[in-house]
């Protein structure tokens, strides 16, 4: 097949596709610093200042951290979600496939950050909560374990989850045309862990529940943790959509056409 000068010129004008990995890498580094720093702080301050909630030192070294977390998290939540909504793309009907592909890849890369944050809440800080409370009996809802599990790790993935949801419905036509139920579950299911914390603490006010970590009072966390299985459905939706989207920007030789 003959190739014209015009075709060669157009081919040269098409910029190669680059994955924008910077937000994902930055996100992972920030999370490692936050969660690693928190774990270091636990090691330093939990045994010395975290055993008695009536101790003035507990107020100084732990409750200040707690209130600081709450203020920062509420601010970040409304800042991220508000920013994503206020700066939304108001012309998604005219979005070029190439730009849509770029945004979709960025969004999927940020799902890695969301999953990483969920790992710290669901695995790392959650299980060490067992060893702390089965060893050091809790005296209030605020302990060196809870202050980083319930009031830091969980809000962090909730902030990320809602931000990703709002990014999807304001910048990605595939998720904006119709709301993916799987995506709602992936964001709202883990979010429901936070109300479960309230129910959990109410129960712990009555009974010494750490006797078993597997008490039914804790099963609300399990139930809402299951919703993350819907992530497989979201990823399959994305992959199916890629079957429609990719042929709009590539030819059968695999070269970019726009």
């Amino acid at each position, binding site marked *: 097949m003959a190739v014209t000068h015009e075709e060669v010129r157009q081919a040269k004008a098409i910029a190669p596709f680059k994955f924008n990995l910077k937000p994902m890498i930055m996100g992972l580094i920030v999370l490692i610093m936050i969660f690693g720093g928190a774990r270091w702080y636990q090691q330093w301050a939990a045994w010395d200042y975290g055993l008695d909630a009536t101790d003035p030192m507990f107020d100084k070294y732990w409750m200040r951290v707690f209130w600081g977390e709450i203020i920062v998290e509420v601010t970040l939540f409304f800042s991220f979600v508000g920013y994503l909504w206020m700066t939304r793309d*108001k012309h998604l009907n005219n979005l070029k496939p190439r730009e849509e592909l770029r945004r979709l890849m960025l969004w999927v890369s940020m799902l890695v950050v969301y999953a990483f944050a969920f790992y710290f809440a669901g695995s790392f800080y959650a299980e060490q909560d067992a060893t702390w409370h089965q060893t050091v009996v809790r005296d209030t809802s605020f302990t060196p374990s809870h202050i980083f599990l319930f009031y830091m790790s969980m809000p962090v993935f909730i902030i990320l989850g809602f931000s990703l949801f709002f990014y999807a419905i304001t910048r990605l036509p595939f998720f904006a045309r119709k709301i993916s*139920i799987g995506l709602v579950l992936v964001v709202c299911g883990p979010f429901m862990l936070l109300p479960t914390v309230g129910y959990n603490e109410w129960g712990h006010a009555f009974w010494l529940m750490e006797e078993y970590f597997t008490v039914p009072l804790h099963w609300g966390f399990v139930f809402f943790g299951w919703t993350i299985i819907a992530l497989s459905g979201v990823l399959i939706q994305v992959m199916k959509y890629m079957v429609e989207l990719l042929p709009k920007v590539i030819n059968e030789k695999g070269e*970019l056409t726009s």
Partner: protein
Amino acid sequence: MKLTTNEATLLSAVTTPNSDAARISRGLDMFVVAILFFAIIAAFHIHIMLTVGDWDFWVDWKDRMYWVTATPMLLIFIPAALSYPFMMKFGLPIAGTLCALCLVIGEWISRIVGFHLWTYFPYSMIWPAIVLPGLMLMDLVLLLSRNLFITSIFGGSAVAFAFAPANWPILAPYHEPVVHMGQLVNVADMIGYSFTRTATPEYLRFIERGTLRTFGGESTLISTGFSGFVCMILFFVWWKIGEWLTNLGTIPNVVKKHVGLGDDDDEK
């Protein structure tokens, strides 16, 4: 099966070596692998720790009451649910093995950083149960049979039947008898007495019930049989739950007009 035009174009594009399409496709794969790795660790680990975790945390609990019976039953939930998308959407019968690996990674990080470095328990007391053989067998049955019912019966029950034998070699030395203050106990109990957990039942009161305490006895076999039977049913049920969660679909977006989309954009 006949491919659509889009599918044929895409297949040709992504199978062209070093093409842009192949690079984009591989990049997406890498993201998906990373997402699944962290998400499965979190989901499977929180599920296990809050349903059968106590028996998994401590060596002196690993022969008590529910360990042999309940752990395989709870182990099968998430792997069975994920078997559906992995097998039916990607042709990969690897969900059981992947879940087991993710769980053991999450558990070991927690045992080292939390249980050992923070609360100073020795590794001999806090090693997690070995779950890989049973879940690998489950995958193997799915690979060979490619059939839900056969995998439920033979793969589901394999999770239970492999559990006690897989853990026996590492657990047996802890069951050597020791006389402590005139009482016959085992090595695992001695370790438990030495490293106090002030909130756990054995510290608060006497909790022994039944005969399953003798892990090597016939009660283990009978309990495993019961667990295997329940696992058969649970594999089927959770496969169906996985199918449901994978195919949830969509609902109308009532705010789409704020991003420039109208009703006629639905089918684009």
